[in-house]
């Protein structure tokens, strides 16, 4: 399973849930999979997808809020895993696309290949933690995870994509803000 396949699979399960998409190829692939107003595409502030999604989750407890994250971004902001595990927002869903590298800058390795992020999430106090290494397993875990009381953490172990990357995020940042905020009203 490649990262884009994983992101494509993820989007087949969504209805109107807000998704905060991590910086880099994650946002680009999300836009490619399903460009929707409920996607908050990050083009900067790497590492903060989970923090932003946490802020939304705490303010919108009736909505399922999703952080579509990457392993490099999670490693950059491990502290927020502890914040999420401590606060335990039941509506928080964390999907981490783990290619164990920095794909958008040339596939340099991250330490996620040797450090299991799902075990860190488990220790941090996430309520439901799963790992998926095949498309079938990912479908099953996403479907099950969306029905669970959170915080949910799903680690999708993937390989990097070989083809050309999805196009850059086309909306201007302030337009992304406007669209996303409207969906949260």
């Amino acid at each position, binding site marked *: 399973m490649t990262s884009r396949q994983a992101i494509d699979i993820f989007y087949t399960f969504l209805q109107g849930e807000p998704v905060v998409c991590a910086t880099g190829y994650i946002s680009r692939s999300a836009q490619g999979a399903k460009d929707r107003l409920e996607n908050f595409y990050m*083009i900067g502030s790497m590492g*903060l997808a989970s*923090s932003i999604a946490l*802020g*939304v989750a705490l303010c919108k407890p009736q909505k399922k809020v999703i952080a579509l994250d990457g392993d490099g971004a999670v490693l950059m902001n491990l502290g*927020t895993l502890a914040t999420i595990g401590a*606060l335990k927002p039941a509506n928080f869903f964390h999907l981490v696309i783990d290619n164990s590298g920095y794909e958008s800058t040339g596939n340099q390795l991250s330490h996620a290949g040797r450090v299991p992020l799902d075990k860190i999430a488990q220790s941090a106090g996430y309520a439901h933690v799963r790992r998926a290494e095949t498309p079938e397993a990912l479908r099953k875990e996403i479907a099950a995870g969306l029905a669970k009381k959170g915080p949910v953490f799903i680690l999708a172990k993937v390989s990097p994509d070989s083809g050309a990357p999805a196009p850059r995020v086309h909306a201007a940042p*302030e337009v992304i803000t406007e669209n996303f*905020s409207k969906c949260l*009203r």
Partner: protein
Amino acid sequence: MKWTPEHTTRASEFSRLLKKDGFHFFTGVPCSLLGALLQNLSEDKDVQYVPAAREDAAVGIAAGAVLSGRRAAVLMQNSGLGYCLNALTSLNLIYRIPSLLLITYRGFGPDAPEHLVMGKSCEGLLKEVGIPYAVPEKDELEKAYQKAKKYLDHEKKPFAIFIKRGIFGE
């Protein structure tokens, strides 16, 4: 932990002022100069204070609150400003996410060595990236806040209020 009834009173007046305008969401990393305000916010059932692991995460959490239609403030020491400059510039400024920043001003005058460089630079850093700020005295807090609120609402970008020693703690 050094704050007095004077700090406590000022903190409760300041939080009342913010709450009146709909600031009910706070996040940050503590500083002793915010002692009385943090205590007030943590004990107030009408507001939510979310302790963050680091200042940039707090900026992200507050951004999520603002995107959800809430007003939000981030509390931190100016040492944390270094950690969150990228978040402020590549998230708040370009996405137009107006968070109120309450930043303690360590290194304003004599202080411990670790505060001296940031104490000298923090105003310049904000000026350089284009985040306006105020450095109020005790009795200018409300005026600074009104200026901040106006800016947040009109420009949809963050505004910082530096909190000097003696306002909410020593």
